């Protein structure tokens, strides 16, 4: 499991305090939760919609709640979790702004990862007249689940608008390697971004 763990998940593990209570939105087969349970002794739940993923989670002993994220999270109480994690899911949601506010209600901190539509290769592709297609954006325009792609600047502007404080940010390539140039020009050079957020008015 460890060797297969995606590097962004490893990075997340560093950001999450041991023994926390964690909600993983769009938890897939429960990989992150299993990793956090074994390494950081966290408790928590995964939310997932796909039947086969649910079965995999159950098989792995992960608490999974079948949920359609587009229907909101009203089943959860305010500050119910230390962390709400959402990896590569926000851009596939009908109303990312509403969901962001919703997860900041139920989590003391929120960790979000998303692909950066402002990466130079995406910009170049558009400049040449075609929709971007890359390892970070591995779908065609017609079959992509990503209906709300944004650049890092877009995302940070939304955070500002919604009174969301950015506690930490990391940018990486699809192998989750980072570099000085990425840190210097994140919106141009970063392909994937990880954010740790909290509600600044809470």
């Amino acid at each position: 499991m460890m060797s297969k763990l995606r590097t962004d998940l490893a990075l997340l593990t560093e950001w999450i305090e041991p023994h926390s209570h964690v909600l993983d939105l769009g938890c897939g087969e429960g990989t992150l939760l299993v990793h956090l349970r074994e390494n950081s002794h966290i408790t928590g739940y995964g939310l997932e919609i796909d039947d086969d993923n649910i079965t995999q989670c159950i098989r792995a002993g992960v608490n999974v709640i079948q949920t359609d994220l587009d229907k909101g999270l009203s089943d959860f109480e305010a500050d119910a979790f230390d962390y709400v994690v959402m990896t590569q899911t926000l851009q596939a949601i009908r109303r990312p702004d509403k969901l962001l506010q919703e997860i900041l209600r139920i989590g003391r901190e929120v960790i979000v990862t998303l692909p950066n539509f402002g990466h130079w290769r995406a910009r170049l592709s558009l400049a040449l007249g075609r929709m971007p297609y890359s390892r970070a954006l591995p779908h065609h325009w017609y079959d992509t689940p990503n209906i709300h792609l944004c650049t890092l600047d877009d995302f940070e502007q939304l955070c500002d608008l919604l009174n969301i404080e950015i506690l930490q940010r990391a940018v990486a390539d699809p192998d989750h390697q980072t570099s000085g140039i990425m840190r210097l020009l994140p919106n141009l050079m970063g392909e994937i971004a990880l954010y740790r957020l909290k509600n600044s008015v809470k």
Partner: protein
Amino acid sequence: MPEKIADDSVGLVTPQRQRFTEALHLDCGRDLPEYEIIYETYGQLNAQASNAILICHALSGDHHAAGYHSMDERKPGWWENCIGPGKAIDTHRFFVVSLNNLGGCKGSTGPNTINPETNKPYGPDFPIVTVRDWVESQARLAKTLGIEQWAAVIGGSLGGMQALQWSLQYPDKVRHAVVIAAAPKLSAQNIAFNEVARQAILSDPDFHAGHYYEHQVVPRRGLILARMLGHITYLSDDAMRAKFGRELREGTLNFGFDEAEFQVESYLHYQGRSFVDRFDGNTYLLMTKALDYFDPASLHEHDLARALAHVTAKFLVISFTSDWRFSSARSREIVQALLHDRKTVSYMEVNANQGHDAFLLNIPQYINGFKAYMEHVAAEVNNDV
């Protein structure tokens, strides 16, 4: 009748009986001085007695959950889809106990059994029993079988309510609770349907205030109506449309009331008629009351999370999207209460168009998730020395 019993069936089974002579104090305030429970078991209890599963039945269910009583039996037990070697509740790995609840009509003490005080059937004098009373009687049965803790208590519908009740009534005797197509309490609409069913039975001229046994009759029409009504609530609109549509039995309208004209009418008549031969009117009344009264949160200022605060069992909660009798929202109330106290719970909302009946059917998504969960339970209890 089965020509040959399938390999993944528990095969031929023989019900057993256990007599209890210590009085059972009931919620209604009365005591049941002595009683008998009929039950079946499938599989083997392991040396640590850690692999026992309790199956709780729904309104019209009984102890015969799997296998066949004889080679002449036309149909297997009611949950043959889920209980058997290699099935979700794998009888190679679990010792499965399935009983007929008190007040039932299939062999456990109930309205149609003899009251030792009068030497006549209890009839309407049989006390009203609650889900809590059932759990109490089931706990006594567990004791006689040498089971200290259930690996899992599992049930659908009213059976799911018993699993939930077990987890809060005997927290240390339940490792896992599997609550399928259930609700934490009935809605006004649920109670309304139950009341119409009860009135159908109570107003049948053959009911004789519940003493119909002495008149050698049964409240046939009432019971048929109650069952027909029940069946409408077990199916979804979609399932009915798919199954019957507006199809006519004879292909033409008869302009009369004598016969069932539409296939759906014929289906309901058949379900009603076949029910009369296998079920008791007084039991139907009791079972619907047990459903109506179930409301564990009512003892905790209607806060289900508080009612479940001391629960230690791990939960699997399952609902079906087209179930309108106990909708997914009702199952989510249970899940929400468990989440509140950070209990261990998984929840599956199965996309199925068969309505409430879905919990008895072989729906891959449901069975796969259920089976995965039970494999986890099996691994847990077999490592547990």
